């Protein structure tokens, strides 16, 4: 880009700001000026709270930029059909993998512990979907071609409907499953048995 005009414009800008002192001053009512400070303070307060939570307490929206070939999900290792659902690694970290496809969630139902950090990894096998668990912050868009990863926890045990909250076609209303949240102490990690996938196939 040719920067000469840019320089000139800025020169003009600075000049015209200088002009202010010569020409009649901008008319501002003293109360209007005070109001401007008030709204700056309010906006500043909100921004400060959000910033501190984001940078210090790591409270952020799902923003895990990761691509995946949605057409080959079922052939991938991570989203192979018997690798879905709840998994606990050796350090006890809980990961939930769910595939969204018109018009359902696979698996349709999962059970997770309350008050425990959970990592959800959502993928779409076809179009745009969204996911929301009412009364929780489990809310993300699911785009084909991307993995929507979100870390959250559910303070209150209960049975939550798993709603598709992004228009995905004529069956959108019917696209739902459920997540059961049980008290941490009553929850036991699901034992993964290959015969599950096995029975699916023989």
């Amino acid at each position, binding site marked *: 880009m040719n920067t000469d005009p840019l320089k000139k414009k800025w020169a003009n800008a600075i000049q015209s700001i200088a002009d202010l002192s010569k020409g009649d001053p901008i008319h501002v009512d003293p109360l209007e000026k005070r109001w401007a400070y*008030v709204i700056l303070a*309010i906006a500043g307060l909100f921004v400060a709270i959000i910033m501190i939570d984001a940078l210090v307490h790591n409270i952020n929206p799902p923003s895990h930029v990761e691509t995946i070939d949605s057409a080959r999900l079922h052939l991938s290792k991570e989203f192979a059909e018997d690798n879905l659902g709840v998994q606990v690694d050796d350090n006890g970290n809980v990961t939930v993998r769910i595939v969204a496809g018109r018009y359902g969630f696979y698996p349709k139902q999962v059970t997770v512990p309350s008050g425990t950090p959970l990592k959800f990894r959502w993928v779409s096998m076809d179009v745009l979907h969204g996911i929301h668990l009412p009364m929780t*912050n489990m809310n993300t868009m699911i785009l084909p071609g991307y993995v929507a990863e*979100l870390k*959250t926890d559910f*303070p209150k045990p209960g049975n939550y409907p798993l709603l598709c909250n992004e228009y995905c076609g004529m069956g959108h209303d019917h696209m739902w499953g459920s997540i059961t949240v049980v008290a941490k102490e009553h929850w036991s990690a699901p034992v993964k048995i290959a015969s599950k996938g096995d029975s699916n196939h023989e």
Partner: protein
Amino acid sequence: MSQLSEEERQKIINSSPIGTWVLMLTVSLGMVAAWLFLYYGVFLPRGAIG
């Protein structure tokens, strides 16, 4: 419509809008309170997100 002399008019026109100031201040403080309630009373209790 009340009858005002010219200097009364000028006085009104050039006086600061104190009613507006109080009104806006009240409304905005109400909004701040409501926002803080939603943030700390509804959003955060629904579970950490990151």
